[in-house]
């Protein structure tokens, strides 16, 4: 137990003597330097341990032999210890990071650094206002001087701007301090009574607080900070962004009790405004460090807002929210700044270099994920609880600002990430030099953030290992990554099997049904991935993570568990999509839309009433009367995931650009997660029908999705894109059927979901096989492959028949159910549009099979072989499945009937194989046999009558005027439905795409517009500060 004042003493003594030590060599001074920094960390860590675990009470340290207020006193409590622990740790690690610099540079740099850290400790612990000013100056001056650790024109001018801004701020702080003394006769925080500030006395407190607030870099008075972040050495920047900020935010926290409520409110809003605008302006930023600067400033704004808005909450919540934001920002930002120093690429577009260095890329990714508030990192929990708190406080504008700001942040952070993973390696300096110290610090921080994440999950939320499972999967497979891909594939298959076994006893059959889609469907699809060669680092980890999060969705017992699984699903699928060769843009779109959806859901869940039972959410929700707003928000969130019209534009990109054996997962299974969610909303809805019939509109959206998806699919040249739009269209049917909210409707939705899972998996895998052999997805580059890949052809044939709904295959059942339910419900026009969509679907289905398998074989494909066995196995399984339920529809209709029977009274009569609705009937079995009969009989006749038929070679086209020369000119495939597009005229314009494109452009233009205020002129920045002070003063209105 060391008195923490020794931190100050030792640092000072060492600082004073360091230049003397240096006379006998740099080694000695370095040893002293690092020992002191380490000492600081240990002292504080020891105290932190005492406070948290042993429950020691807050420590007060008097100086000069007098007690406060006579003398200056320091205080070390759990909060101080928490802040200081991270500040000192960051200080130490940043120093380690900078070791090379410290070895070379002037001894003064060590002195400055050491005293900077001392200043932070003093600033956090002191309770005296003027002492705070002194420590603030110590901190500022050492920082000013350290900005030129790497001296160049940029860092010098940035440093100067920083100085004059800091100078102005401290002048105001000083004024505030003396006027506080004038009004209260005291300088010690513990002895100042906020009620002494009557009327214009508030100005004193205003000056004090605004000065601190300016130091926290509020928008727009923060240009100087951005310049500093951009130009200063990464190690020092991390200290400024993290250690200094931590200290100053704590100062703000300390003086907060003095502030009147209206000023607090203003600061809260100002924090949110800062968060929003800095993230908005980050959109257009291309310089890596400046981008981090924007993010950093934004996070500080968020932190301020979170401190202000949580002030009246229980301690545990404050720790989680403020502590979460705090550590999250601190660690992630420091780590990212360090990485920018390692990578040494100013422009974000050059960051493709990172993919050469996998370890660094993982660190980068983890830190970036942490910064974006993705589970399990602390920011996620903080955001969840914070939004919940704000929503309960009805502060919707604040919520909107924060979430929109977060979305912008996601955009630029993930853009950066995708560039790092997929971008081009810059031609000059294509190697990242290795420096152990730099890697060391960054790695430690990543480790710490992961530890904190686990601590939060374990101790704040008490999740069980099942909820951890997606993460465990990633970690375990990360360590098994050296194993060849095939073995990992088998292991994954086994793992999914075991997982399914443990998952199995479900509380309801609906869960079981989706469990089959999610788990069994995934398992079969995994077989296709066994075709992978080599190692395939990271693939199976994220695949398992995704599959396990699907399963966890089913058994989630609370909103948070559901949302957690949902986020895990999003992240893992994002990473999987990103693995595709050109998936940079696609994955970015995906994550942006998913996040937007997730944010809506977050608000929705926050608004939802508490659950009353301890069942899985899908069951418990039936007793919950969701307000209409919640229903809308959740529904939009789920519909984004299922690619409904308007928010579908991520879908084709993601499906098309993902690796070809990943696409089936996305289409066949991931989209069903959205469907599952919609069912959840529906279950609550049917039990508590609100005044506003929202599902009517959802129904229309589903219907329009179906038709637009079908049309879009028809105009694609890319096979996977075609299938993607087809998925969109099919899920449109499902969404519309759910929206019917009737027995028949839900029956159709479930039936189609199951069917779609099978035939779309089969189709995607078949196309994967074709792609594997031909290396192209562009359909007109193929043709005639039926002769080379007959099995794939059969699979596609069965697949498209099932999709199209032509009897006798199971697709017809879906169509029959859907139309029956629509007409029964009275949604006639919708049914008509669906009919149309269904007819249009023939266009793309024929196009798919014709342009790939029929027509003229290309010369370059003369030697392609049938798809590998691993692709064929799952296809066969799905074929068998489709045939089985086609022939014996009862296999599926019976159980579905009983599932839906839990929610609605059954409206169909199942008699043998005959299914009768109020409108008509359908006997799948009989249809199958009749069809077989009428197919076989003519076939036999033909074979008997036409024994002389001879098969001719390619190009022996009998009735062509000329013998065609090249397959390219003979194979009609390109822009096959050009005339249709022409007929559609103005309807064929990509309006929705244009809309989002324009939105994007607008956001970037706004970003460009707002950042014009940062003229780069130090004087203008001062003007901003002064104007900011004046404006806040007038808003406060004393």
């Amino acid at each position, binding site marked *: 137990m060391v008195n923490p004042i020794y931190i100050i003493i030792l640092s000072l003594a060492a600082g004073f003597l360091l230049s003397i030590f240096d006379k006998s060599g740099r080694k000695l001074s370095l040893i002293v330097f690092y020992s002191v920094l380490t000492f600081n960390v240990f002292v504080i860590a020891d105290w932190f341990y005492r406070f948290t675990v042993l429950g020691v009470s807050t420590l007060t340290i008097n100086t000069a032999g007098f007690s406060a207020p006579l003398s200056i006193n320091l205080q070390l409590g759990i909060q101080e210890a928490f802040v200081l622990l991270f500040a000192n740790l960051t200080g130490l690690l940043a120093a380690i990071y900078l070791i090379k610099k410290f070895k070379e540079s002037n001894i003064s740099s060590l002195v400055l650094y050491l005293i900077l850290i001392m200043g932070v400790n003093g600033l956090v612990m002191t309770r005296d206002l003027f002492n705070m000013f002194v420590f603030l100056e110590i901190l500022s001056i050492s920082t000013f001087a350290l900005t030129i650790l790497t001296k160049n024109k940029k860092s010098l001018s940035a440093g100067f701007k920083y100085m004059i801004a800091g100078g102005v701020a401290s002048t105001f702080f000083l004024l505030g301090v003396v006027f506080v003394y004038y009004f209260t006769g005291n300088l010690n925080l513990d002895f100042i009574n906020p009620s002494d500030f009557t009327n214009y006395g508030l100005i004193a407190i205003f000056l004090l607080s605004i000065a601190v607030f300016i130091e926290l870099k509020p928008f727009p008075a923060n240009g100087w900070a951005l310049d500093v972040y951009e130009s200063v050495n990464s190690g020092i920047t991390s200290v400024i962004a993290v250690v200094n900020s931590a200290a100053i935010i704590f100062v703000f926290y300390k003086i907060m009790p003095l502030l009147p409520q209206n000023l607090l409110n203003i600061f809260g809003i100002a924090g949110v405004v800062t968060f929003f605008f800095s993230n908005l302006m980050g959109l257009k930023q291309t310089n890596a460090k400046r981008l981090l600067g924007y993010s950093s400033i934004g996070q500080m704004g968020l932190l301020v807002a979170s401190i202000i808005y949580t002030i009246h909450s229980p301690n545990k919540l404050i720790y989680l929210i403020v502590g979460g934001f705090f550590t999250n920002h601190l660690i992630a930002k420091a780590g990212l700044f360090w990485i920018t120093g390692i990578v040494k690429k100013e422009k974000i577009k050059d960051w493709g270099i990172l993919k050469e260095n996998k370890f660094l890329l993982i660190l980068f990714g983890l830190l970036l994920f942490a910064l974006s508030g993705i589970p399990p990192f602390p920011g996620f929990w903080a955001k969840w609880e914070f939004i919940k708190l704000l929503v309960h406080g009805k502060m919707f504008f604040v919520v909107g600002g924060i979430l929109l700001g977060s979305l912008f942040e996601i955009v630029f952070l993930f853009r950066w990430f995708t560039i790092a993973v997929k971008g081009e390696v810059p031609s000059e300096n294509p190697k990242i030099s290795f420096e152990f110290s730099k890697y060391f610090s960054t790695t430690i921080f990543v480790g710490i953030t992961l530890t904190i994440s686990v601590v939060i999950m374990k101790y704040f939320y008490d999740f069980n290992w099942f909820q951890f499972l997606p993460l465990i999967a990633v970690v375990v497979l990360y360590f098994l990554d050296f194993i060849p891909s095939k073995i990992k594939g088998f292991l994954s298959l086994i793992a999914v099997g075991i997982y399914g076994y443990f998952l199995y006893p479900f509380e309801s059959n609906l869960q079981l049904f989706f469990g089959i889609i999610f788990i069994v469907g995934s398992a079969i699809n995994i077989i296709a991935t066994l075709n992978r060669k080599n190692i395939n680092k990271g693939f199976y980890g994220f695949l398992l993570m995704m599959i396990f999060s699907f399963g966890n969705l089913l058994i989630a017992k609370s909103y948070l568990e559901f949302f957690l699984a949902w986020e895990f699903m999003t992240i893992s699928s994002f990473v999987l999509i990103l693995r595709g060769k050109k998936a940079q843009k696609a994955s970015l779109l995906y994550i942006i839309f998913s996040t937007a959806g997730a944010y809506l859901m977050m608000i929705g869940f926050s608004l939802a009433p508490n659950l009353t039972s301890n069942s899985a959410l899908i069951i418990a929700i039936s007793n919950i009367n969701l307000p209409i707003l919640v229903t809308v928000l959740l529904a939009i969130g789920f519909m984004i995931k299922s690619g409904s019209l308007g928010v579908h534009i991520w879908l084709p990109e993601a499906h098309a650009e993902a690796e070809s054996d990943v696409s089936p997962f996305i289409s066949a299974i991931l989209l069903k997660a959205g469907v599952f969610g919609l069912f959840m909303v529906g279950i609550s809805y049917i039990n508590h029908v609100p005044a506003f019939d929202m599902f009517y509109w959802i129904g229309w959206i589903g219907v329009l999705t179906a038709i637009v998806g079908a049309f879009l699919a028809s105009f694609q040249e890319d096979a996977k894109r075609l299938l993607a739009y087809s998925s969109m269209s099919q899920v449109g049917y499902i969404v519309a059927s759910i929206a019917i909210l009737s027995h028949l409707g839900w029956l159709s939705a479930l039936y189609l979901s199951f069917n779609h899972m099978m035939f779309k998996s089969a189709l995607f895998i078949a196309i994967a096989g074709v792609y594997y052999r031909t290396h192209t997805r562009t359909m007109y580059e193929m043709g005639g492959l039926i002769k080379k890949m007959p099995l794939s052809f059969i699979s596609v044939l069965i697949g498209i028949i099932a999709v199209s709904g032509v009897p006798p295959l199971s697709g017809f059942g879906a169509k029959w159910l859907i139309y029956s339910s629509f007409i029964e419900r009275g949604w006639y026009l919708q049914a008509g549009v669906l009919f149309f969509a269904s007819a249009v679907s023939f266009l793309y289905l024929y196009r798919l099979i014709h342009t790939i398998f029929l027509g003229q074989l290309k010369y370059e494909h003369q030697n392609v072989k049938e798809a590998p066995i691993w692709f064929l196995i799952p296809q066969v399984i799905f074929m068998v499945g489709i045939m089985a339920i086609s022939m014996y529809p009862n296999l599926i209709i019976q159980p579905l009937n009983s599932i839906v029977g839990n929610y609605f009274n059954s409206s169909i009569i199942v008699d043998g194989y005959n299914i009768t609705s109020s409108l008509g009937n359908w006997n799948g079995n*009989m249809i199958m046999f009749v*069809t077989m009969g009428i197919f076989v009989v003519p076939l036999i006749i*033909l074979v008997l009558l036409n024994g002389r038929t001879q098969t001719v070679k390619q190009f022996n086209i009998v009735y062509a005027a000329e013998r065609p020369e090249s397959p390219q000119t003979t*194979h009609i495939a390109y822009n096959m439905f050009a005339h249709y597009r022409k007929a559609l005229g103005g309807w064929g314009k990509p309006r929705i795409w244009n809309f989002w494109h324009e939105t994007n452009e607008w956001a970037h233009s706004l970003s460009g517009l707002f950042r014009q205020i940062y003229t780069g002129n130090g004087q203008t920045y001062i003007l901003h500060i002064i104007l900011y002070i004046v404006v806040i003063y007038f808003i406060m209105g004393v």
Partner: protein
Amino acid sequence: MDIMIKILYAVISVIVATVYGLTLGGVVQKIYARVHGRFGPPVWQPFIDIIKTHGKRVSISHGIMFYLGPVFRFAGGLGTYLFIPVIYGSVVFANFSMAGDLLLVMYFIFFGQLGMALGAGEGGHPYSPLGIARGLSQMSTFELPFSLAVIAVAIQYDSLNITTIVAAQQGSILNWTLFTNPFAVIAAMISLLGMNMHSPFSLVLAPQEIPIGPPVEMNSSFLAILQTNRGLFTAAKLVLFMNLFFGGATNLLIMIVKTFFIYLVSVIVGAAFPRFRPEQSFRFFLKWPTIIGIISIIFIVYF
């Protein structure tokens, strides 16, 4: 034994329909010729054609799908026909209509078209996919008014069961859908023009543009099957229309009379109008008949 009798009846029914359909084709050829001022082929010309093409010495196949294409096509025609109760009250002509309802029939129409398209596709002739692309596009457009009309009918009779629909139209000529729901009938009849692919909607076979269209590579027996199917399929469609809109038929004669006149409508229109360009055709179907179809639904729901 029951099933054998059923099959026997079905065979009879199919043969009758095929013969009738082919004859109808011959008659229409004749009418066309007379309208054009020619003498025209005999009404049994279709039968002669079938036998002749079948007798061709050279028979060429481009592959398995090409081989199966005509089979699919014929099966489609058969199926469509077999799932329709042809004559109200008749056991022989009830076919397999108990297997499903109107929706089944509508979707079974696609079966043959899809199969044919696949077979033609493998033929490798550029005209085939051109024709199919046109055909599928046009099909999607005329399906829209047709489906609206069907929905209107379903609303009207609160059933999708063809037998039920026919039963509801019995008793008086005024019970026919034609009179109770005229808009639906108009929409459907316009669709029928497209379905029958007569001028001005003869995009698929379009003689001067893509001669013959999809079946361009079909020869000998393959072509013969297609020609047979053309008769059966035409009959099936006409019977379906008769059932839905014109009160059905209680005996063979009424059926022949009614279907003939239904067919005549498209023939007359075909003789009077020149062929549309593809996009004109698509746009046409998506405009007027669709509007009429929507009107029919509104009409039946609100009046």
